[in-house]
């Protein structure tokens, strides 16, 4: 069924089709619409989820952790400072191996306060032990949410499905919906082995874990994240059968013979693809790699996809303040280290706090790559893009 949905409505609709046991609900722009849509489903009896309207995102994640541990399937949605407020509990969720599903509608972190899109919120939580899957558009936001539970519940890790605030969450697009019974069958029932409410066998969750055990638990957690890669692909293959839509860890666009390439995440991929089509007509061998899964990071796959390129720009939509480039750059450069032949690599931090990124901006980046490939002169490795220079008028 084809329908016109915003990204938020698409995710809320996926939640309705899944009919989770518990939802932790708290408003924050731009994810607020998700609990709003869901409240209507609750009010109309379209779901029978226990809808818990908490007093903070901290409690929202606490409710999800407890509910999931109790044997229920729990979901929530948040953005920006809301995710930051959950920070402590993101780690608790992951280390307790509770497969919660969280829709993160990416928005810049304060301060100063800014409600528009960048990836600083979820990138700030990138090492919390959550699987992170990013959507380029509304269709992917819907699809990713449906794939999240079969992934997370299998490897027992929580999953964050991310989409770009406003650009994806609020813009309306035509998307294809699956039938509800198809979604329910695909997602299946949540059947944890042990849970708090299991009558036969009481369970204790959240111990004081001394140094004699803590490290073993962390190693198991790390192994689960490694295993998640194969599971994500397995679920994607199953999803393709019911939807006809193909998903990988990365999305390669016109990479077959690409000499110059961008590596980026999220909705900017659409802009980049339009620019690449234009450049291809002009004879530029341009290509794009959209990183769909950031955790676990598909390092080997990325290195392979970039193996025949000459110059690559990593586009980071969050700063990171490492003074050595953004988080996507760090991962990409790391992934390329074992390659015998490596492309020239630069990092461009762009689009912070909703700063627009247009087709002509992508062309400018490719112009720089073209120069680098031709001369071998990289220039500054790590730069910012789209900001005014000192003295320039707004």
């Amino acid at each position, binding site marked *: 069924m084809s329908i016109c949905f915003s990204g938020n409505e698409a995710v809320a609709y996926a939640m309705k089709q899944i009919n989770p*046991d*518990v939802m*932790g609900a708290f408003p924050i722009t731009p994810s607020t619409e998700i609990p709003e849509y869901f409240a209507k489903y609750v009010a109309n009896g379209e779901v*029978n*989820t*226990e809808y*818990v*309207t*908490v*007093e*903070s995102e*901290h*409690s929202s994640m*606490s*409710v*999800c*952790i*407890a*509910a*999931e*541990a*109790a*044997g*229920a399937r*729990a979901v929530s949605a948040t953005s920006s400072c809301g995710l930051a407020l959950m920070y*402590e*509990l993101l780690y*608790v969720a992951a280390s*307790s191996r509770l497969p919660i599903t969280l829709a993160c509608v990416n928005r810049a972190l304060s301060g100063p306060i800014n409600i528009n899109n960048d990836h600083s919120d979820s990138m700030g939580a990138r090492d919390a032990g959550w699987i992170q899957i990013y959507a380029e558009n509304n269709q992917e936001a819907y699809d990713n949410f449906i794939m999240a539970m079969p992934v997370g519940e299998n490897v027992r890790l929580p999953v964050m499905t991310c989409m770009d605030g406003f650009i994806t969450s609020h813009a309306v697009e035509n998307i294809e919906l699956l039938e509800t019974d198809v979604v329910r069958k695909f997602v299946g029932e949540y059947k944890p082995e042990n849970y*708090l*409410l*299991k*009558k036969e066998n*009481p*369970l*204790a*969750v*959240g*111990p*004081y*874990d*001394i140094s004699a*055990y803590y490290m073993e638990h962390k190693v198991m957690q790390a192994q689960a994240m490694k295993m998640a890669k194969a599971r994500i692909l397995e679920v994607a293959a199953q999803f393709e059968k019911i939807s006809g839509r193909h998903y990988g860890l990365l999305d390669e666009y016109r990479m077959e013979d690409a000499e110059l390439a961008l590596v980026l995440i999220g909705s900017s991929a659409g802009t980049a693809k339009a620019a690449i089509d234009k450049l291809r007509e002009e004879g530029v061998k341009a290509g794009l790699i959209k990183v769909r899964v950031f955790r676990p990071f598909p390092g080997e796959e990325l290195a392979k996809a970039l193996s025949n390129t000459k110059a690559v720009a990593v586009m980071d939509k969050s700063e990171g303040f490492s003074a050595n480039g953004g988080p996507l750059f760090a991962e990409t450069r790391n992934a390329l280290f074992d390659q015998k032949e490596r492309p020239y690599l630069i990092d461009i931090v762009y689009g912070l706090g909703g700063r627009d990124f247009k087709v002509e901006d992508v062309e400018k980046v490719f112009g720089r790559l073209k120069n680098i490939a031709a001369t071998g002169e990289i220039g500054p490795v790590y730069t910012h893009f789209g900001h005014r220079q000192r003295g320039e008028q707004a």
Partner: protein
Amino acid sequence: MNTVYDLKREVEKPERLTGGHRLCAGCGAGIVVSGVLRALEKEDRAVITNATCCLEVSTFMYPYTAYMDSFIHSAFENSAATCSGVEAAYNALKRRGKVEDIVKFITFAGDGGTYDIGFQSLSGAMERGHDMVYVCYDNEAYMNTGIQRSSSTPRFASTTTTAVGSVRQGKIQNKKDLTEILVAHNAPYVAQTAPIGNLKDLHTKAYKAIYTEGPCFLNVLSPCPRGWGYPMAKLPEIVKLAVDTCVWPLYEVEEGEWHLSYTPKKKLPVEDFFRAQTRFSHMFQKGNEWMIEEAQKYVDQKWERLLERTGG
């Protein structure tokens, strides 16, 4: 519940908090927890929540748990939200026919996790109306981290962050009256109690809290030998002095109705309670008589106000 309380019969029930936990000798917390859990009907299951606190690290050190019931701990400031999340899951699973029997939800947290860092989470859970019991075992400071002041610490008490020196001597502010704040949440049952005597008061109130539908709150005085400075064996006496000096009055508020649970035959002067603990020893130094006077005045005012409210 049997109408006549019988301690002997109660202690013959299988313990839900088993021995072997690592709480200090002379600590009130273990007595409070086992006392509250004893009020559960034998056949009813419970899921216990803890905030991060002395109790939590002493009762669930991996791979051993002292609880016979299911248990969850997640963080310091979210035990009320955590308990409400388990209750939410119970409602959902019950509605879907996946859980059938009766399960009760009880949280234990210290005063730091309740009066301070967990206050918002507690207020939210009480307002939402989950069917749960929140038990604060109030030992009047952050004991798990080594005796730092909380908003529950009484005025003049010495802690490691309200040190006694030549310019300042102990805590400056009075204790926050959390029980009253919980009454203001219109919770169906709010009570102040202590592990006193044969534990009847604690048992009766715990039973009411557990079997009253909706969010119920118990504030239980829980002395700490390390933080308060008393010999381990003196725990029952310390509790009795707190109650008989009216420093910690026992009362309950049922559906907005205030009832006084206990009136001392002879109201003792507050200095009797203070003298028994090293955290107040500086109050007995020459020149500090005003401290005891101020403290007495404050306790008297609070007591008079409570008598007015309870019609006592």
